[in-house]
Structure formats: structure tokens, C-alpha cells
């Protein structure tokens, strides 16, 4: 559980009372106090977050506002026809903060200065990665420790760990990569740029994104397009056009062109091949980690000069 979530809960209870009913709130209504908390610089000190943290650790507590938000996100995932990786699953992480620190210390991957009244640092300095504070002298663990609590126990269970993250957090994930690799994991990093709005990338805490929510995008698109064209058009725009880097600002016009393109693809993209040929095609789109790269795959839908089994791709990947 990260500090900013706990701060949000504490702020809600402090300003709206502990019995507020969030069941009918929208995502915009739930975001307003979050933006307000940051604007007012009204975040509580860590000591005031402790009761929340203890409830999370002890009972798997989730604040009603977050429960509502998760429900909204599930509806939005469905609206976008996205796979829900388990938004509502609330399982405790497999390791405690102390388990993680002990496991890291055993391998010389952390520096524990708490006995001097200092922090715990994550240490991959032998790989040239800067020392990174992870647990404050007050005991507050940051999001990297939260990730390690979940990921370290899973290392042996999976062939590969894919870290997908905001490009601004690249240094932290280079570090996570080194740490997980030291525990035997095979790690691939997928760094994603945020889509700028009117030329600027601002943290969600500053607001300014209210007319670009999932529901706002969907309502506008679905007034002119069928659901399948909406699903495919969004993928063409956000994956193939904006790519991982998102160098250009969000553009309703370019999105609209991709929605129109999606309509044509659904009508004309009928080229189908047998299973063997389809597999052979997918192999050509593999990333270094061995998995099929969604960017290369989506871009291939725009291919005009080479044969692409667009019918197979639409049926099995994009519009199953």
C-alpha cells in the first residue's frame, strides 16, 4: 500500500467524515478530493497514516472510496474490452517489509541504516545504479518495497516478469530489474510515456484531465461509431499511432481517423491463414523476451505492402 493512497483515505475521512457513503460517486467525484488534497498541501504526516496501514496489514482493509473506484475501473475495463488482471483481488503480499529487507540484506542488495536513525536503501551500486531510499527512518516503506513484497515471492513461479511503468519512473525500474534479476528472475522492462494533453505532461494530482476520462472518450466515440470500431480504433490510436513514447499530444482528430480506419479494417480485414502460418507470423513479432510484442503486432494492422493475416488478428487478439 503506497503512502499516497493512505494519504487520500486519511484526507477523505478527515474532511468528509468516516461515515461518508461513496457508493454513488463517479470517478470524477472521487478524484476531486485527491486533487484538492494536493492543491491544499493537506497531506497528513506518516504517524496519522499508521492506523490505516495497520488495518491494511492486519485485515486487508480497503477504504470504501477505493472500493468504489475499483468498481468503476472494472466497469471501464469492460467498456474498453480490456482483460481485467484482477483489479478487485485483495490478497496480502507474500512478504512483509522486514522479510524483504532481510532477503535483500542476505544478498548485499540493501543498506540498513535504521540503527543510526537513517533509512534503508536499495543497493545496486555495484551495477552503477544510484543508491535508492526505500524505508524511511520512521518506518515508512515506499512503493518499491511494496512491489518487492509482491514480486519476490513470485520469482520462482514464472518464466518472466514484465515491468510496465511510467517512463518517468525508469531509474526505479532499472533498479527493480537488477534486484529481481539477482533473485533469479528474467525481467523485461516496458517503459511507457504518458500522453501529453495540450503539450504538457502533468501528474494526475494537478487535475486538468477531467474531459479526457475513459467515459468522456467513450461517450464521444460511441455517439458515431459501433462498439467494435471503438475498441479497435482506440488500440490503433494509443498503441500503433502514439507508440510507447507518446511523443504527440492527445488529438481528438487523429483518434477519429483511427476510429474510421477501424471501421474499414473490420469491413476489409478478412485475410486469414491456417494455424501454422498464423503462428509463423506471430513469431516474426516477438520481442527479446520471447513474447509477442503488442506494439509490433498492432502496427502490422497498418501494413499495406506485405501480407498480414488481419482476419486472424482481429478474431483472436483485437476483437475476440
Amino acid at each position, binding site marked *: 500500500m503506497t503512502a499516497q493512497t493512505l494519504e487520500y483515505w486519511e484526507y477523505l475521512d478527515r474532511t468528509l467524515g468516516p461515515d461518508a457513503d461513496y457508493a454513488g460517486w463517479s470517478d470524477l467525484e472521487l478524484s476531486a478530493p485527491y486533487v484538492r488534497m494536493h492543491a491544499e498541501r493537506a497531506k497528513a504526516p506518516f504517524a496519522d497514516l499508521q492506523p490505516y496501514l495497520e488495518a491494511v496489514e492486519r485485515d486487508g482493509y480497503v477504504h470504501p472510496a477505493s472500493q468504489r473506484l475499483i468498481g468503476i475501473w472494472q466497469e471501464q475495463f469492460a467498456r474498453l474490452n480490456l482483460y481485467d488482471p484482477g483489479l478487485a483481488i485483495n490478497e496480502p503480499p507474500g512478504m512483509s517489509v522486514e522479510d524483504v529487507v532481510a532477503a535483500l540484506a542476505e544478498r548485499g542488495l540493501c543498506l540498513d541504516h535504521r540503527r543510526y536513525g537513517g*533509512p534503508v536503501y536499495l543497493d545496486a551500486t555495484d551495477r552503477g545504479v544510484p543508491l535508492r531510499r526505500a524505508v524511511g527512518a520512521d518506518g515508512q516503506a515506499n512503493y518499491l518495497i511494496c512491489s518487492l513484497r509482491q514480486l519476490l515471492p513470485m520469482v520462482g513461479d514464472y518464466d518472466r516478469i514484465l515491468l510496465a511503468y511510467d517512463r518517468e519512473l525508469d531509474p526505479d525500474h532499472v533498479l527493480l530489474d537488477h534486484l529481481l534479476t539477482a533473485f533469479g528472475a528474467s525481467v523485461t522492462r516496458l517503459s511507457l510515456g504518458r500522453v501529453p494533453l495540450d503539450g504538457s505532461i502533468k501528474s494526475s494530482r494537478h487535475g486538468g484531465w477531467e474531459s479526457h476520462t475513459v467515459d468522456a472518450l467513450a461517450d464521444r466515440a460511441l455517439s458515431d461509431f459501433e462498439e467494435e470500431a471503438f475498441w479497435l480504433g482506440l488500440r490503433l490510436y494509443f498503441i500503433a499511432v502514439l507508440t510507447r513514447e507518446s511523443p504527440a499530444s492527445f488529438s481528438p482528430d487523429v483518434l477519429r481517423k483511427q476510429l474510421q480506419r477501424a471501421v474499414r479494417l473490420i469491413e476489409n480485414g478478412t485475410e486469414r491463414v491456417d494455424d501454422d502460418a498464423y503462428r509463423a507470423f506471430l513469431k516474426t513479432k516477438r520481442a527479446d523476451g520471447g513474447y509477442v510484442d503488442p506494439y509490433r503486432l498492432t502496427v502490422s494492422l497498418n501494413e499495406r505492402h506485405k501480407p498480414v493475416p488481419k482476419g486472424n488478428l482481429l478474431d483472436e487478439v483485437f476483437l475476440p
Partner: protein
Amino acid sequence: MIAQEVLQHELAARLAAMGELGDQAVVAVLREVDLAAYVEGALAFALALDAEQAAGWTASLTRTLFLAGDPGHLAARHRPDHVARGGGAAWFGPGRPDDYQALRLLLRAFEGEAPVPALGEPVRVRVPGADGGPHRRLHLDVDRMSWQEHLVHLNHAVCEAALAGDLPPGATLELTHDPAPEPPWLHARVGTDPRDSERLRLFAALVAVDKEPHHGP
């Protein structure tokens, strides 16, 4: 309690002896603080400096930047000039602070706000370089002192005394965490009391011990 006049006199004498301020600094990298190994390492580092380095660092008031880091992880990119026994601490320099830019970006400033505990018994080390020598005792007054402050005072006291010849090779140095006796002192660290800016405080004092130290209460 040492009288304020005595401390004022000590500080004035020190300021009067100061020449032009130098621009040299040393970087100390700390994985852990093993006091005996740390003091021994600081002494070995200071006494291994050549005359020019020693003069430059002394003129810079033995300025030291303390960084948190594991010396064992650095050697491939940043080779320390001295590593403490056990590898818990290492020293780089002296040089200009800019010379350590890469090291400072890789590591973090040492943080240690917890109070320094009392010592069960004095920490004893031999100043490296010879087999026998005089007996010295360093009193470090740790009352309300954090680890961070402690390391600064200990480092300056030990290195300055060594560079001034007050801790010759072979000498036995005993470190205690208690207030110093009345003068004479071979070497003293006096500064503004961080808890009361109107007062001076004696942080550390090095004294000569004539006979075998007295053990126990």
C-alpha cells in the same frame, strides 16, 4: 562542566592559527560504523597522506563528506584510497568536492538522527605505523548527540590530531563517550552548542594519559 571562558579561549586560539581556507575535501563512505575499525581507518588514511595533501586538507579544516554506501560495491568504478578493516568504511581524497561528483550522485548523504549510545567500555586502537608509543584518550561528549554529529566530531578530532602530530604512529588511542576533564588538552573541538546558540560546547578533547588507564568505575 568546562567554563565558557576556557572554551572561548580555546576557540579563539584555533581561529587565530587558521590560515587561508583551503578547497579540499575527503569523502568517507559508510556501510556501517564499527568504531574501532572506523577510528583505525581514519587514522591510517590521514597518516598516509603526503605532506602537500595533509597541508591542503588541514587548511580546509579536514572537511569530510559522509556518504552512505557499501565500499565493497564501489571498487570497480571508484577505487577508495583507504578501506577500513572489515570493509565497513572507506575514504577517498583529498580533492576538490567536484572531483567526487559521480560518487555523490551514486551514493546518498549519510543520515543518522538516532542518539549515539554510551559505550560499555572504551574503544581502544593502536595508531598504525609503529609498535609502541604514548597513550592518549579521546573524550567525546555524546550527550544529545546524533550519529551524524558524532561521526563529524570523531572524524575531525581524530584526523586533525593525527595530522598535527598529536597521535603519532604506535600510540594507543582510547575513545570514551563521556565529557572531557579540565585542560590541559592536546587537541580540542569547540563549537556553538547546537541546542543553545548562546553557548559554546566542548565536543571532543584529546588528553595524554600518563599511566595505564584506570578500568571500571
